[in-house]
Structures are given as structure tokens and as C-alpha cells.
């Protein structure tokens, strides 16, 4: 990866989590240079999560927090909860203003560099919003 001209943008974070280098760098490249999200940056959240994240800003100012993971990886509930918690903190700093929506996505990286995105939401809030009277 260090043979790539843009690796230096994530090198600091990769140094702390070298086993996640490929997932982080390929997700970061895809988010910033292929999907064209603005203000993309890689961060290593505090709190012992150990998973580097990528924050970015959407076209409408909302914050997007991406969790680069491998296709054959498994998470427990505690990890998912920690991801949601850290994402809220990071997303506020990435958004244009504190009232912007923060969305958490899984960026699933395959071994041929394919990246698939899935949104993680709070099921209770989503269902309540769907049932709310128009």
C-alpha cells in the first residue's frame, strides 16, 4: 500500500492497526476518489474500539461514518454498539453543523477491492419514523 501515492493520507492510522490496512485504505480510496464524498478522513476512535473508521461529508452536509470490514469478518453485539457510540461522536465533528444527520455504514471490502456499503440504523427509531402520521 505504501507504493500508492495516496497511502500517506491513512498511514498514521494504519500504523496503529496494521492488520486492517487493506480494508481501511481501500475503503478510504473508494469513498474519497470513487464515490466522491467530501472531507473524507481516516480516524482511529478512542475508547478501545480498535476499529479504524472513515468519516466523510455528503453533498447535503450530513455526516457519514464508514466502518471498513472484511467480507468474512464477524462482529459481536458489543462491537456493534461501540461502533454506533463512536460514530455519533465522530459524526458530529464531521458534519457541517451539529443538527445534521449522522449515518453509519459498513464498508465491506472484498479481496478483489470491491467495496459494498450497508447502512446500520437504529431499528426502533426507523420503525417509529415509518409509523408516524404523515
Amino acid at each position, binding site marked *: 500500500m505504501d507504493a*500508492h501515492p*495516496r497511502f500517506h493520507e491513512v498511514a498514521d492510522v494504519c500504523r496503529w492497526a496494521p492488520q486492517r*490496512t487493506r480494508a481501511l485504505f481501500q475503503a478510504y480510496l473508494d469513498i474519497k476518489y*470513487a464515490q*466522491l464524498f*467530501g472531507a473524507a478522513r481516516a480516524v482511529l476512535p478512542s475508547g478501545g474500539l480498535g476499529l479504524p473508521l472513515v468519516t466523510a461529508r455528503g453533498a447535503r452536509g450530513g455526516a457519514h461514518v464508514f466502518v471498513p470490514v472484511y467480507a468474512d469478518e464477524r462482529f459481536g453485539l458489543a462491537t456493534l454498539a461501540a461502533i454506533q457510540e463512536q460514530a455519533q461522536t465522530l459524526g458530529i465533528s464531521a458534519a457541517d453543523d451539529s443538527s445534521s444527520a449522522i449515518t453509519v455504514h459498513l464498508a465491506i471490502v472484498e479481496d*478483489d*477491492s*470491491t467495496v459494498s456499503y450497508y447502512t446500520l440504523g437504529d431499528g426502533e427509531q426507523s420503525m417509529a419514523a415509518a409509523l408516524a402520521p404523515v
Partner: protein
Amino acid sequence: MTQAHWQKLGSPVAVDMEARPSAGRKRTRAKNKGHLSALPVVQRPALLPRIGILIDWCRRVLGGSRATQSIAWLSKPLAWLSRLAYAVLPGNLLWPTLVPARVRATLHVVRDEASGRAVDSWVWVRDGWEVLWQNGAFGKGILSRADPTWAARYRREKEEEEEEERRRRTGGVYLEDITRQRRAARQGTTGAADASDSMRLLDVAAADVGRMEPMQLSPLEALFLSEIGCLEVRGADGDGPPLLHAELFGVLQECHPPGALALRYAAYYYYRARGWVVRSGVKFGSDFLLYRQGGPARAHSQYSVVVRHAEAEGESRLCASWQYAAALSRLCTQARKSLIVCYVSPPPPAAEPDGSSNCAGPPDLRQYEIQEFLVERFNPNDK
């Protein structure tokens, strides 16, 4: 490929290309019925068989006319020539995916600092990827959906931006340009490029544009191309001697659970040997997607393949659960694909003198067996 490689694969057996399952939703003889197939081995040089096929076609078309007599005499010496070429010339494994060159690639490995064990790896091709893409749709650009096109798109956007700037400076702005800008302002987007066309906002040095997007080969593609002699893999710096196929397999295997890479590689080899273009199926919840010759650039895939380890008789499960099978089948149906469950039966690991099992080294694919099942939803209302 050398003569030694041909001997390793064993006696050559022509692959029956007509044994491919027919397209899409058509019912085949193999529907709902697994068929046991041994992995195919070498099929011989492409040119002579193609000439033979052409002659046979001419004979069928021309019928019993006098022209066929002049063509018929070609077939006998052609048969002898084929046998001679078969015995003498270096073999090409798969004539439908013949890669007419040996391409250089670099292997990048991330190692655990404590143990030195490889924890992740990937293979990049910077030069010669066009050969791999055009002859079997191997690889994927890391910033594109298929072959690497990021640099070309970026340069095109920059040229358009420079052209617009030049027109603004020289006064060559047209009414349509003004209309487009006013429409963008009414829709709430700024006058500058929004996220949908902000390649112009990317600040990439001109010297780096060509290096932004190498082609990445999956471990299975790298192993396959290495085995048929079309890929030369070196270290990350590109220097040093090329890795042997066994060395490449050893490094890639360290990054996977024991036996998992060999299992998927056997299935990959099986479908590639039958002329399918095999791509990742992660977006459809499966292991592979099968495309006809020409790859994803020509048409959508027809089959979605899930690879499973064939366990002892009576213990193999079609899927993790029938609910999972139903979900996967529904997903494939929505995407207009047929679901294939591919069971791979590996040989038992060779026992070492001390009683431990030896899983090192590339697998001997001649000892693997494949069994396929086509799974489709049946609607009783359509009886």
C-alpha cells in the same frame, strides 16, 4: 508452460465445452440433479482446433457440393497436425481464456510484528492489465467497477473544466451554459461542482494520476494465472526473483483459515476450466458470479455460486439453514440469476510420519471432486 507442468497435471483430457449448463432459467437435464465431475485438465492449443471447427462448419453448410471435397482433404492432415502439436507444443490450459502473455504483478503482504506471520495480502498489476482484462476479465481496478478507468475519467473531467474555463475567459459562453447554471442554482446546488461531479475538486498531481489505480487480482485469480504460467509475481518493490506457484500459494494461504483457500480455488478452477468468467459474488451474498465469455462488460451474470465443503456422507448440509437458502435464492431470483450450490470434495490431508497432517503446498486438483446443485424456487401456483 513447460513440459514438466504438463506432466504434473496428468494426461490431457479434452474438456467438453457443450457440458456447460444452459442459460438462465431454461430447464436443463442437470436441474435438481447433482452431477459429479472431476476437475478438467489441459486442453490443447487453440488455433488448430479452431481451424478444425471451421472446416466442419463449412462441410455442414456446403453439404454434398463439390466445394466440400476440396475442403474435406484438409481434415485428415489437420488431425495428424493436431496430434503432433499436442505432443510437442507448450500447452495452453484453457483456450477460451487464453492469455497470450506473461504479466508482471506485485505481492503486498502485511505481517504480524510479533510472529512474522502474514495476516493480509493482495496482488496488484500496474502494467499489462489490459491483456488480463481482455482475455478472461481478470482483475478489477481499485477505483472502478471493472477494468481500471479512473485515470481516463479524471483526465476527461479536467479537460472539460479547462475547456469551460477557457470559454469563460474568451467569452465563448452559450445560452445553454447559462441555463444549466441557473437550473443548478434553483435546485439548490452551488455554482461549483457538487458531490456528483466533484472529480474536479480532487487535487491529484499530474504525475500521480497514472499511479492512482492499479488493477487488483483476487487471491484465486492470482493463483490461477500463476498456475497456467500467465502471471509473474514478485515482491512489493517489484525486484527480486519471481515467486514460484507454491510460494505464492503458501503466502496467500497464511491469510486464510486452513483449507479454505484450497476449497475455493478448486471451485474457481473448475468453472474457469469450463470457460466461465468467474467474479466475486459478495454483492449477491454468494462466493462467485459466473459470466459467459466476454465477462461483465458484455452481459449480466447468469449464475450465482455458493461453495461448500462436501463432508462425510449424510452430514453435508445444503446451506446453513433452509431459511438462509430461501433468502439466498430469493436474492438471486430478484437479480435474475440462478443459484448453484457447489460442493467440493477435497482429498484427505496427507499424513506425516509423526502422525500430523500436512496441508502445506498447492493442492493437487486432480484429487478434488465437484458436485453441483441448482436451487430454484418453485411456485405451486404455476403447476
